[in-house]
């Protein structure tokens, strides 16, 4: 049974999306105050939140939103000019609206904070009280309603101007022009009632208009156009089509029904004309029930509405739909289970030597692969959604720290699994916060060092193999590697007698409680964060590294798999246990006996290059497994190649990676597990960790 969600939850979800839009518009506007489109964007977001908030009677939320919306309406209409206070108040209001959504509309604390924001907005622009409909007064005048993103409705408007229209200055053409500004307009003027020259008042108005208007601005906005002529003119406004009507109505009404509905003919006249067995329009004209113009007008309406519906049907068929992410998660998980089940079927077919079953399993394989790719693709979102959220962080941090920092970004179209993106938010937040706080110097120091006063934090994303690399680069002072080494030694994290590579020293930053900053700021510097950053990223099957250049800045490089859902790997055995290596990292597999080993078997000559080797039998403590023909898997990561020695190679295998849980989350060289078709577990190798281990070994 389909269970529909709470409409209030839907509103909250949509309101959060709109708040995100609002935030982006405000920050963009702050960067470029001439960007008028951002004023419209901010207004639209506020207006829609207010309108929906009204439906749920969220008075305090609506009142605050209305206040800020009014200010942006005034800005849009050129009544006030852009002011930094307005941007700040807009952002404050955005946070408060989000808090209202989270904590409820009657939170006393929030209401008092909202009052403060409203009072501050009032100092910039006087505010009209919000109407209960959310669309009438103040900024919701017909002009303001232009920004309403409601559903399109088609109205049939019969407009018969008053005889003295021209004499009173109410030129009907001006009203038609105003209607045209509301949406798509079809006008059919009827001169039928224009009298002969001996009867006519040459300054009178005798032409009537049948109008079809499609607009998303609501009935009130349509009525408002006629507000000054409604007492004298004859006006009727009827809804003849809206987007809630389904495909079943595609054909719209028949000609006779339209004419009856318009009041052009009676039901009896229609029946009489139908009984004449002629074309209805002809019959009606011939009978004198209607004029040719009336029939043409009704036919135009019929054709117009049918066209609209056809267009809508085509549009609906080709446009996207919103699906809740938890449903999508369920789908991906189900596909993942299906992939595992297919693997079990293949194993079973082979175990039973059942040829029919094997053929069937093979035929299923392509289907399963396509389904897997499609479900993963549906889960992908551009990393822009993540990056954009940090603009506010950098803006606020710069203000708090009295620094001038600009956030730039590239590769924002790079797509990642939505779940990966969600999980990356906190780690990136820590990294960016550190970059602004510790990396970027105060403007005076930067200037003295010959740098621009404004510092830059650049976010860059790009595809790399089966993963994505995200870099956070700052052009700040860089890290003092020697100081980090000293601190690590003083905390017994490094041996003072040992020689360490820069990478190993910088790696200390990711250890719990490590900080080189003597005074903790409110922003960062308590050593809490970077260890969490690494842990979170490793839990995603990713890795994080630091590069730094004193005086020029630092780069934190995160490598993350494209998806957490389903991974294709190569199965290998060591001592009878199964291990899996991500296929994306594998370059080649060779027999160990066939390669030229050097330096106490720690290096091999691989195609003319010395490549370090990690003997996994030794690394995982198996000792001598008695394998008769051990294999070596060459893997590559960030330009580094290493060889991994295993007993035997098995098949490729697709599966869902399961977490090892809290107890084993720090198990080195292993990042997860998969359950094979026959229920046997296989450990998923952490290639990044193994590459780092081997690199450190070689450097020593």
């Amino acid at each position, binding site marked *: 049974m389909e269970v529909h969600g709470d409409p209030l939850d839907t509103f909250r979800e949509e309101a959060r999306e709109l708040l995100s839009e609002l935030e982006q518009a405000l920050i963009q506007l702050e960067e470029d105050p001439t960007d008028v489109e951002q004023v419209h964007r901010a207004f639209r977001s506020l207006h829609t939140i207010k309108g929906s908030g009204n439906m749920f009677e969220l008075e305090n939320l609506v009142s605050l939103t209305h206040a800020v919306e009014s200010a942006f309406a005034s800005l849009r209409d050129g009544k006030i000019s852009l002011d930094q206070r307005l941007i700040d108040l807009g952002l404050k209001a955005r946070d408060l609206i989000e808090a209202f959504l989270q904590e409820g509309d009657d939170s006393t604390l929030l209401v008092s904070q909202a009052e403060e924001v409203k009072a501050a907005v009032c100092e910039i622009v006087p505010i009209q009280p919000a109407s209960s409909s959310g669309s009438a007064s103040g900024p919701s005048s017909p002009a303001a309603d232009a920004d309403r993103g409601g559903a399109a409705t088609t109205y049939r408007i019969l407009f018969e101007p008053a005889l003295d229209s021209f004499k009173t200055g109410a030129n009907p053409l001006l009203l038609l022009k105003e209607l045209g500004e509301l949406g798509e307009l079809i*006008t059919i003027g009827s*001169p039928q009632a224009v009298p002969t*020259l*001996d009867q006519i008042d040459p300054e009178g108005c005798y032409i009537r208009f*049948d109008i079809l208007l499609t607009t998303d601005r609501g009935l009130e906005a349509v009525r408002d156009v006629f507000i000054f002529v409604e007492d004298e003119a004859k006006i009727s406004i009827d809804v003849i089509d809206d987007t809630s009507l389904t495909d079943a109505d595609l054909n719209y009404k028949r000609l006779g029904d339209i004419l009856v509905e318009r009041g052009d003919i009676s039901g009896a006249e229609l029946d009489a004309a139908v009984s004449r067995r002629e074309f209805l329009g002809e019959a009606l004209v011939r009978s004198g029930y209607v004029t040719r113009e009336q029939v043409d007008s009704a036919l135009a309406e019929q054709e117009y509405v049918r066209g609209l519906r056809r267009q809508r049907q085509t549009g609906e068929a080709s446009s996207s739909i919103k699906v809740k992410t938890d449903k999508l998660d369920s789908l991906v998980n189900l596909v993942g289970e299906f992939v595992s089940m297919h693997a079990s079927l293949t194993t079973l077919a082979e175990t039973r030597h059942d040829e029919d079953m094997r053929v069937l399993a093979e035929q299923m394989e392509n289907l399963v692969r396509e389904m897997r790719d499609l479900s993963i693709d549906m889960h992908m979102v551009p990393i822009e959604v993540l990056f954009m959220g940090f603009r506010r962080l950098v803006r606020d941090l710069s203000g708090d720290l009295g620094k001038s920092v600009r956030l730039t970004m590239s590769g924002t179209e790079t797509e990642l699994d939505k779940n990966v993106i969600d999980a990356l938010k906190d780690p990136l937040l820590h990294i960016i916060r550190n970059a602004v706080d510790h990396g970027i110097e105060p403007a005076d120091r930067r200037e003295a060092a010959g740098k621009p006063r404004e510092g830059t934090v650049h976010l860059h994303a790009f595809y790399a193999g089966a993963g994505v690399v995200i870099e956070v680069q700052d052009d700040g002072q860089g890290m003092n590697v020697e100081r980090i080494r000293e601190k690590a030694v003083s905390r017994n994290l490094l041996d003072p007698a040992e020689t360490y590579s820069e990478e190993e020293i910088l790696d200390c930053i990711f250890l719990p409680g490590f900080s080189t900053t003597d005074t903790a700021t409110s922003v960062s510097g308590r050593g809490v964060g970077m260890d969490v950053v690494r842990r979170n990223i490793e839990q995603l099957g990713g890795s994080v590294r630091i590069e730094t250049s004193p005086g020029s800045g630092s780069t934190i490089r995160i490598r993350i798999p494209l998806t957490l859902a389903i991974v294709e790997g190569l199965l290998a055995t060591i001592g009878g246990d199964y291990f899996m290596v991500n296929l994306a990292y594998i370059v080649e597999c060779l027999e160990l006996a066939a390669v030229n080993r050097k330096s106490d078997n720690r290096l091999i000559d691989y195609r003319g290059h010395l490549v370090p080797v990690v003997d996994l039998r030794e690394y995982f403590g198996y000792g001598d497994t008695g394998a008769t023909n051990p294999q070596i898997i060459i893997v590559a990561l960030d330009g580094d190649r290493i060889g991994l020695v295993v007993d035997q190679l098995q098949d490729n295998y697709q599966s869902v990676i399961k977490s090892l849980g809290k107890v084993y989350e720090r198990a080195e060289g292993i990042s997860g597990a998969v359950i094979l078709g026959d229920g046997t577990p296989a450990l998923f190798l952490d290639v990044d960790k193994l590459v780092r281990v081997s690199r450190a070994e070689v450097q020593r």
Partner: protein
Amino acid sequence: MLQSTLEATDGTATLELAGDLSFETACEVRDALSALVGADSDAFVLDLSRVESFDLLGVQLLFSALHSARSAGKNLSVAMGPLEPRMEKMFTFAGLPRDVFFQGG
């Protein structure tokens, strides 16, 4: 400002209008058109080739003339070069049938 010239030859009365057909000239236009359809002729020709502009009232008077001619059982035709874009726009905007006057125009 309106100028009108009415001529009748071979059973056809021709009214040439020049200037604007607008609210300001509506009464003059009505009178000139009345003279045309009141002429003792079998057919009427309305020459608008020297008309500079018309508004909705001007167009309305053309319809009035057309209705008058038809009610007298006579034919009214309009002579004019191609419609100026702004005049054409006015017909389109008001949704009025222009073909009754300006066939192919």
